[in-house]
């Protein structure tokens, strides 16, 4: 019982976070930057930050993750990190030769007051950025928000600093991907193709973090949104942001800069959210929904109906990131399940508001996000009201084991299983995969626990 110290009595805590349900901004910025083709993410801070982020992403994806670091020293922390960053930019272009460097800050460089905009401008003025190459940046202080905030900030940085409006509209729709897996991004592109809508998806980590084995270490794998594509987003007809927290800021930035109108919808997880996505995309692309997509939907609904008797009334605890949790909660309600405990370390009014709207269908649910919304609290809630299923990232395994609860891994990070980067959980097909995982977890448990006379071939 690793968590044997967890008590069921919930006390107000003033400072302490125990077993966090979030991590810090920079890793989100690094992940987002990997979704640009030929981009080297750069961590402007101590060496450890970069190392931790690369290790975590490597564990989650089982892929090489490349990123540079400013390698702060005591001197830099006294005199500012400008010299380090200028040197880093020069070194990176001359040795690693990326098309673009995406710099993010850290708690250290933010606290000493480094201004990334000013430093990157200086790099340009000093001729340290070769012709046709780019440096973009995002301010990502670790003491604000979470990894999701960092992702949102870097994606907004792409929109702000790259896009140009030539005045000539293109027949294409931008899709800003909220924090999702490479498999999900691949699926969004497939669905758009099926619908016949030309899209620019950014960022796009497919073919970057799910690269095939080739006998080579591709420093810049073939995937990622290209610079030309990113630039062209300023001329698109409209933007669809998938996620209020991780994607909308980029859509707003694009609208501000290039007057591209946008609509924000939830990430298409589960039936209802995917319905809204399909409607929004077909509207934006002025196409009708093809029979194949309708059939995909039909298959999902078919399984939901086939298996409804195994799902109703089952209590679920879930934790993770805002843009996943909102549509996932909605999906659970559509499945006639009961989401009773929901935790996210990520703060934010928009998230809270949206979740409360969804939870009007589930007035019994406990929901907390932001400070002290951690795995310890989730565990305490579960002790007070036990659940039939836990859904969340790998860190849920301690609670699942101690309380003997079926566990479906979903979210970031997943350090101990594969699949998330290869099989999508967005769209109708993704919904089917999520449903299959939920059912398998529940039915495996029923089989495991059944008395011999009740252990049935057909359940």
């Amino acid at each position, binding site marked *: 019982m690793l968590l044997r110290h967890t008590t069921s009595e919930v006390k107000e805590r003033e400072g*302490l*976070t125990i077993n966090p349900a979030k991590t810090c901004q920079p890793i989100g910025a690094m992940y987002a930057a990997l979704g640009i083709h030929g981009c080297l993410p750069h961590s402007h801070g101590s060496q450890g930050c970069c190392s931790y982020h690369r290790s975590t992403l490597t564990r989650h994806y089982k892929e090489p993750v490349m990123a540079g670091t400013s390698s702060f020293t005591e001197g830099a922390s006294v005199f500012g990190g400008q010299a380090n960053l200028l040197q880093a930019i020069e070194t990176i272009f001359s040795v690693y030769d990326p098309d673009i460097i995406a710099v993010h800050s850290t*708690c250290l460089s933010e606290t000493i007051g480094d201004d990334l905009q000013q430093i990157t401008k200086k790099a340009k003025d000093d001729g340290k950025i070769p012709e046709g190459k780019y440096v973009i940046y995002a301010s990502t202080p670790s003491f604000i928000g979470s990894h999701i905030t960092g992702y949102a900030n870097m994606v907004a940085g792409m929109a702000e600093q790259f896009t140009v409006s030539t005045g000539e509209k293109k027949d294409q729709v931008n899709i800003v991907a909220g924090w999702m897996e490479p498999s999900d991004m691949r699926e969004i592109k497939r669905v758009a193709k099926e619908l016949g809508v030309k899209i620019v998806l950014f960022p796009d980590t497919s073919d970057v973090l799910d690269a095939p084995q080739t006998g080579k270490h591709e420093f810049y794998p073939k995937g990622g949104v290209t610079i030309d594509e990113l630039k062209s987003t300023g001329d698109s007809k409209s933007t669809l942001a998938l996620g209020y927290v991780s994607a909308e800021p980029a859509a707003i930035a694009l609208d501000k800069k290039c007057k591209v109108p946008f609509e924000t919808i939830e990430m298409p997880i589960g039936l209802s959210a995917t319905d809204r996505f399909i409607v929004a995309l077909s509207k934006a692309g002025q196409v009708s929904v093809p029979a194949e997509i309708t059939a995909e939907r039909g298959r999902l609904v078919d399984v939901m109906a086939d298996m409804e008797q195994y799902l109703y009334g089952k209590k679920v605890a879930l934790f993770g990131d805002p843009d996943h949790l909102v549509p996932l909660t909605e999906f659970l309600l559509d499945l006639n399940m009961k989401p009773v405990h929901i935790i996210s370390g990520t703060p934010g009014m928009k998230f809270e508001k949206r979740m409360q709207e969804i939870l009007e269908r589930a007035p019994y649910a406990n929901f907390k996000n932001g400070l002290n919304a951690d795995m310890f609290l989730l565990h305490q809630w579960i002790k007070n009201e036990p659940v039939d299923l836990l859904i969340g990232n790998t860190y849920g395994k301690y609670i699942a084991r101690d309380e003997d609860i079926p566990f479906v891994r979903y979210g970031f990070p997943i350090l101990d299983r594969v699949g998330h980067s290869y099989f999508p959980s967005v769209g109708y097909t993704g919904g089917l995969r999520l449903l299959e995982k939920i059912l398998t977890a529940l039915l495996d448990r029923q089989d495991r626990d059944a008395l011999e006379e009740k252990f049935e071939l057909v359940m």
Partner: protein
Amino acid sequence: MDTEHISLLKGREKQVYEKKQGGAEIDIACDTKSLSGSVSQRACVFCGSRVVLYPVADAIHIVHGPIGCAAYTWDIRGAVSSGPELHRLSFSTDLQEMDVIYGGEKKLYQSLIELIDQYQPNAAFIYSTCIVGLIGDDIDAVCKKVEQEKGIPVLPVHSEGFKGTKKDGYRAACSALMTLIGTGSTEGISKYSINILGEFNLAGEAWIIREYYEKMGIQVVATMTGDGRIDAIRRSHGVSLNVVQCSGSMTSLAKDMEETYGIPFIRVSYFGFEDMSKSLYDVAALFPDRPEIMEKAKEIVRDEIRKYYPEMQKFKSALTGKKAAIYVGGAFKTFSLIKALRTIGMSVVLAGSQTGNKDDYRRLKEMCDEGTVIVDDSNPVELSKFILEKEADLLIGGVKERPIAFKLGVGFCDHNHERKIPLAGFVGMYNFAKEVYESVMSPVWQFAPRKGGLL
């Protein structure tokens, strides 16, 4: 970027050396900070402190800073405990913007009180992270105050990430341990006693080593820090000898203990038959008035090697002529790995570390064959380049290196935090040989393009 046609990273020439007939003397510029902009595989001061103290299982470890540092070091190392498991939880003050402006001392104090009340630990370690060093929180004062109120040792670890390299983090951790040492009773400690230093009980390795020494009739007082306990550390100054592995992390503690308590120390390695045997003999030799200790050591070595020898020959015949690349944290480990790989017929074509010093690299050069490349603080481009050029069949490294090896189509063995089977001791050498054999000879390579897609 095409890794086959890259040159060395500018400014890296002094950290890469190739052993050639009549070549230059080795003079690797190590102990330096990494070049800004390099894709370094290194970590920071905090990381160094955190890994050294992490396995102390009946203490709480609270990370004072924004959430990341605590999140990334939550249960990342399989340092197993035979009892309490407080070390596997993640505690953070989760500093916010307002705390950065107004200071985080109050929050730290409050967190410590809440934690100690909740978990009843035997001690608390408080790690300061980058911004704590900048905003000037007086964590020493907070620690002192809580120590007085709660009556347990509350130890500050000055591990601000930017204040040096990982090695400085080791030192900060050792100085926290040094504060504890000497505060417990040495009653019941025999003359024939040791501490095991620099063994972190990954996959239960410390238990294996401890058992060998105990079989020899030696009392093991404290393991630092594998399966570590505060009480054992507090009385560890009562031993006759410190036995130090993982030279980088714990030599400074051994030296401090020698200076303060007059305890001599020896450096050992538990990796490979040769070094493992030597670490038993070296300890036995220091207790000459009890010859049965040496007798027992010989018996253990004989029995253990007899047990694993036949299987090892099988691995050896399959692996003879295969080539290995090594890139690990400490250089001392590299020495043992070279010897161990030779035992199973493999040669080393690339040897490097993140934190080796000049002496380490000189010794490495002596041990290596002609043509071996020696690197300090390397990066993925360099590693890929040399693995391809030198046609390595195996890479030994850590978490960030594993997928690079697999993309290149060569086998891999984790010799870092993520080893899941014990690699120390005689059984560990067998496990290592088996893991290397299975990875290098895996059928997957029949289906995978190898070595730059040429094979």
